């Protein structure tokens, strides 16, 4: 009697196992498929437009011909600027929260606020940036204002990922270092942060990814529809890829004709993010190995 029952149960187990496997498999495949579809779509339409000229030349003929060079440069400036602002401050904040702050109301408050910051819609950032940087501080619509605004957007991402990477370092290393008479700062600088660094870089990449595609924050703070020249200083306006894409798809002088360029822009944007990710992974692996050695 008993032997029969276990055979039945066993069969049911196998069937459920199989069911679960295929369900998850199909879903995962579905997601990958969607991604492939999107990429293929953009690749197909944008590929014809891509050329060395496209990347290095100014737009011509009301954006129906020529290149997207200024937008590309603008995006790069903005990404760099926002990271110059967000990365040091974000890392320092995370180090404070994880290594120094005592458990209590203040620490929980800071962490809650950071999470809230992450949830604020990007258009609100844009409005805030316009109000504070562009108007009150009189920076005007500029790279400076745009970088600061994007930096604020990126800040919670950097803080959270850095915090997580610090948290993931086993406490025994801190204890071991302190027991040798090192101060908390020495411990963080010499042992903990170098160990967390690969994951911190990942956080940086995530932040860059987030920032390069944002349109709303740069709408009022820096982006220009068209600039005949490249910017000279941080107080100048710039063009940017996401905004450029938006503009030529919706309110350009000749939408139909610019469609090809729009796809091209989208492709360049995606490529940018992809390349950044690959670069970051390479950096991660390099630093990961270094951590093991010294």
């Amino acid at each position, binding site marked *: 009697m008993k032997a029969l029952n276990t055979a039945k149960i066993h069969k049911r187990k196998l069937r459920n196992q199989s069911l679960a496997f295929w369900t998850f498999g199909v879903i995962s495949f579905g997601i990958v498929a969607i991604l492939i579809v999107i990429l293929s779509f953009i690749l197909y339409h944008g590929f014809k437009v891509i050329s060395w000229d496209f990347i290095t030349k100014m737009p011509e003929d009301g954006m129906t011909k020529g290149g997207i060079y200024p937008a590309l440069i603008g995006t790069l400036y903005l990404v760099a600027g926002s990271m110059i602002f967000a990365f040091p401050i974000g890392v320092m904040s995370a180090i404070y929260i994880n290594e120094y702050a005592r*458990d209590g109301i203040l620490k929980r408050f800071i962490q809650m606020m950071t999470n809230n910051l992450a949830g604020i819609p990007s258009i609100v950032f844009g409005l805030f940036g316009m109000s504070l940087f562009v108007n009150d501080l009189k920076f005007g619509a500029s790279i400076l204002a745009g970088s600061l605004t994007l930096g604020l957007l990126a800040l919670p991402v950097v803080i959270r990922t850095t915090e997580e990477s610090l948290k993931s370092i086993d406490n025994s290393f801190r204890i071991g270092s302190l027991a*040798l008479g*090192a101060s908390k700062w020495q411990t963080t600088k010499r042992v903990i942060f170098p160990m967390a660094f690969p994951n911190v870089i990942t956080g940086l990449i995530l932040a860059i990814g987030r920032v390069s595609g944002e349109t709303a924050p740069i709408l009022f703070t820096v982006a220009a529809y068209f600039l005949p020249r490249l910017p000279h200083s941080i107080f100048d306006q710039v063009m940017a890829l996401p905004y450029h894409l938006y503009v030529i798809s919706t309110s350009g002088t000749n939408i139909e004709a610019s469609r090809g360029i729009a796809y091209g822009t989208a492709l360049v944007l995606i490529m940018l993010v992809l390349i950044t990710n690959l670069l970051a992974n390479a950096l991660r692996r390099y630093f990961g190995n270094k951590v*093991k050695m*010294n």
Partner: protein
Amino acid sequence: MNKIETRNVNLYYGDFHALKGITMSIQENSVTALIGPSGCGKSTYLRCFNRMNDLIQKVKIEGDILVEGKDIYERGVDVDELRKKVGMVFQKPNPFPKSIFENVAYGLRVNGVKNKAFIEERVERSLQQAALWEEVKDKLKKSAFALSGGQQQRLCIARALAIEPTVLLMDEPASALDPLSTAKIEELIYELKNKYTIIIVTHNMQQAGRVSDHTAFFYMGELIEVDETKVIFTNPKNVRTQNYITGRFG
């Protein structure tokens, strides 16, 4: 000469009374073993001497804890300096993800020592004291993680010795190791006591017998008995001590 002395020390983790009125002296250049069942307070007591209990929030300490005659919990005591004088080795070996050389040199570097020759000499000396030099002298630049568990623990001991402490605290240093490595560590402790004052927490009573000059038996936060190890193991004065070491209660 009393290297370490505690007088009526009480310690609380929040509301929990972890150490109850501990009064004890420890002589220079001796090995003192702290034994007792799990949770009896022996590791807590050990951590008092280099103020590692400070890292735990909600800890309250009363009473006097003196190292070389000075109260280490007084205001104005430099905790980093204390920890250079009172070193610690932990149960699970915890070398840094650095090279063998850099691990041992760490204590010197955070102390501001920059002289390369001095650091090299000190690293070699510490590794010899920890009976590890012969095994690693050709691969000092290799990662510490490439060593076996027993070697890693000896590395941690070398790392602690590099800054020349006078007291060495060891929290179950061999309990995570295989028997051969354990034997090596025990021999090491026997040799080190000529230069250092050692306090070792162990849940292995036979180890206490082999390695220590004095043994202190803790139970539920109280110090039940402390005496020469010979006496504790042949004729303890307290019946609870006898029950513990004969294995008649956990």
